[in-house]
């Protein structure tokens, strides 16, 4: 009995001590959408930051996938329980921007807390997605990737093609698909994220608008514009390939990845962040190539745009907490952290310094192809058509695009019909969003 009581007293004392020790540091809540390997890497970043100082403690919480995390953030804000930092995917950018009073732009945060902050340190093509037309940074780019072409070199050799052949244009890829299909290959080409790669990035890569008003950057009165000749030509060609069994549609997300990694598919258009998975699982010789473009279309190659997420600072917290948030954001942007993140995941380094550091460390020489995403994004200064997309209700618009593309792949609609219909349906949503964001 006596022993138990002492033990209890000791335990209580320890608990109190730990509690005081913890409450000494200001807590910063960060809600993110990463699990698995990426979740571990996020936890590692947080631990490194917490260990590097004892004024602030960052607490990371996983809130589900991208959509669910955004939802959790919105619901929490409505209940007055919002975290300090919220991870929001690029598709939700317009929604967050419209929420004046719910968010604290990063440039304001840095001004108020007086932290050193140089927006020019960030890669133009990455930063552009999250800055206003006046160049003010609203959210901190966190994980950004861009689409590239993955090639199964063994499949090409088996079909009698030179595995190092020029695949920079869709014309050349198309010729390779013919040969592969001729040789009886069952899955010459597959893709992930069809709208992002084959419509949104297609436009940016060829300096052609996806939507009017600089893809929505210059105002919410933007209208979709991807039913022009370039987009229709590309989707029409993909539809032909689908009909001939040269393009295999696997699903709306990255379902095609499993087939490519298993060695079933010869070509795969996917995010540069798919690199870690391919490297880990592929038991064949693979290569990464830049996303192909149509040589017969003017404007290409311009630059591709990013996908991924950025970190938004939420309103309604105390000044000393915001000081911690600013410090943490600067920590995340530091070259060492970014270079490691870039090398571990295949996401782009968000600062030019991190890219230089990665090169100095010899990573690109040891892992050929990993530098392509960065080069593809930074080759040219972004134009109004290639800075990114800022469209309201964009998650839903992508859903509409997915539906219409499926109609093309199954042969139910022509490319022109499907794109016209997607534009018309999407514009209805844009007008509705325009009204709510006044």
């Amino acid at each position, binding site marked *: 009995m006596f022993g138990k009581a002492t033990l209890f007293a000791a335990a209580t004392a320890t608990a109190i001590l730990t509690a005081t020790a913890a409450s000494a540091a200001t807590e910063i809540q960060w809600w993110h959408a990463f699990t698995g390997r990426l979740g571990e890497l996020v936890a590692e970043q947080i631990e490194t930051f917490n260990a590097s100082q004892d004024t602030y403690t960052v607490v990371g919480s996983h809130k589900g996938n991208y959509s669910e995390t955004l939802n959790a953030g919105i619901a929490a*804000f*409505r209940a007055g329980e919002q975290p300090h930092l919220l991870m929001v995917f690029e598709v939700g950018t317009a929604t967050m921007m*419209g*929420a004046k009073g719910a968010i604290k732009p990063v440039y304001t945060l840095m001004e108020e807390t007086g932290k050193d902050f140089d927006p020019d340190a960030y890669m133009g093509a990455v930063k552009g997605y999250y800055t206003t037309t006046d160049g003010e940074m609203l959210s901190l780019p966190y994980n950004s990737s861009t689409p590239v072409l993955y090639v199964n070199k063994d499949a090409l050799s088996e079909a009698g093609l030179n595995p190092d052949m020029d695949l920079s244009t869709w014309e050349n890829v198309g010729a390779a698909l013919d040969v592969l299909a001729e040789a009886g290959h069952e899955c010459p080409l597959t893709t992930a994220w069809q709208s992002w790669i084959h419509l949104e990035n297609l436009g940016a890569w060829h300096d052609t608008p996806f939507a009017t008003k600089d893809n929505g950057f210059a105002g919410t009165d933007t209208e979709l514009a991807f039913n022009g000749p370039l987009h229709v030509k590309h989707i029409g060609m993909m539809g032909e390939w689908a009909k001939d069994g040269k393009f295999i549609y696997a699903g709306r997300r990255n379902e095609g990845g499993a087939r490519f990694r*298993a060695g079933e598919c010869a070509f795969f258009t996917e995010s540069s962040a798919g690199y870690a998975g391919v490297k880990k699982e592929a038991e064949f010789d693979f290569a990464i190539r830049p996303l192909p473009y149509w040589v017969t279309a003017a404007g290409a190659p311009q630059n591709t745009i990013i996908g991924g997420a950025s970190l938004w600072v939420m309103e309604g917290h105390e000044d000393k907490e915001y000081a911690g948030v600013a410090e943490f954001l600067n920590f995340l942007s530091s070259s060492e952290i970014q270079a490691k993140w870039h090398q571990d995941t295949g996401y782009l380094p968000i600062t030019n310094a991190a890219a230089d550091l990665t090169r100095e460390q010899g990573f690109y020489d040891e892992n050929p192809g990993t530098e392509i995403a960065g080069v593809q994004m930074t080759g040219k200064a972004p134009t109004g058509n290639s800075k990114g997309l800022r469209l309201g209700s964009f*998650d839903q618009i992508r*859903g509409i695009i997915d*539906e219409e593309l499926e109609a093309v792949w199954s042969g139910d609609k022509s490319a022109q019909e499907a794109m016209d219909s997607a534009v018309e*349906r999407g514009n209805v949503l844009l007008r509705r969003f325009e009204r709510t964001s*006044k």
Partner: protein
Amino acid sequence: MQKRVTFHNRWLPYLLVAPQVLVTLVFFFWPAGQAVWQSMYLPDPFGLSSEFVGAENFTYLFEDPYYRASFITTAVFSTLVTLASMSVALLLAVMADRVIKGSGAYRTLLIWPYAVAPAVAGVLWLFMFNPSIGVATYWLKGLGYDWNHVLNGTEAMGLVVAASAWKQVSYNFLFFLAGLQAIPKSVIEAAAIDGASFARRFWTIVFPLLSPTTFFLLVVNVVYAFFETFAVIHTITGGGPQQDTNILVYKVFKDGFVGQDLGSSAAQSVILLFLVGILTVIQFRFIERRVHY
């Protein structure tokens, strides 16, 4: 002669029904009222501003041909799920009712799938029928059939119906079995002595006597197909390919929790509320007349 219970204290009866009334108020009338209220507004996602729009959310929906088409998809889906889950359950119940040895084991196994959450059921079926790695897809390929529910709408519908119905079979089975066991043996034995075959005994005696159970299950299953199958759709097809499996309740979720369009989402909930109300009235007015209690 009617039995009437009389209370001596005039407040006691109200006190006794109060918990039920309270639960209904808090968990049904309040949220339903909120949905009706919200359906007349166009709010921004964060609830920072809200514009009164009257019936505009409703006209917006009915002007959308894809929303109107979703009614047909829902009708097809609900009918198939209800028919499939009830007929299979009845067949299994009749067979399990005749089992003499080891009936407990059979029954437990048949009830098991009910413990599976809809989302898990969806993932399970998705794995079996995954166009590239599914076991069932592989077998079908062996038989010369190329399964691809990612692009084939009929196959996608078949798959979500199968997954939704499979889960509900256990529940229906439980009620049918109980219903079967409540039928007096003497009636069936008398018919058997008169020389009625098993099929004849089933259709002229057992099935009519089961009608209260069948009617109850019909109502429950329609409500299930309308409201609780969303997780199955979400995990297997996401409403696709195109709009082929986009049922009304899934659109409520997509517009509300993916699109952050709470006004339209609320309007759709109100429409669903009325739809199910009408369906229930129809069921009680017209089908219940054929039920023998």
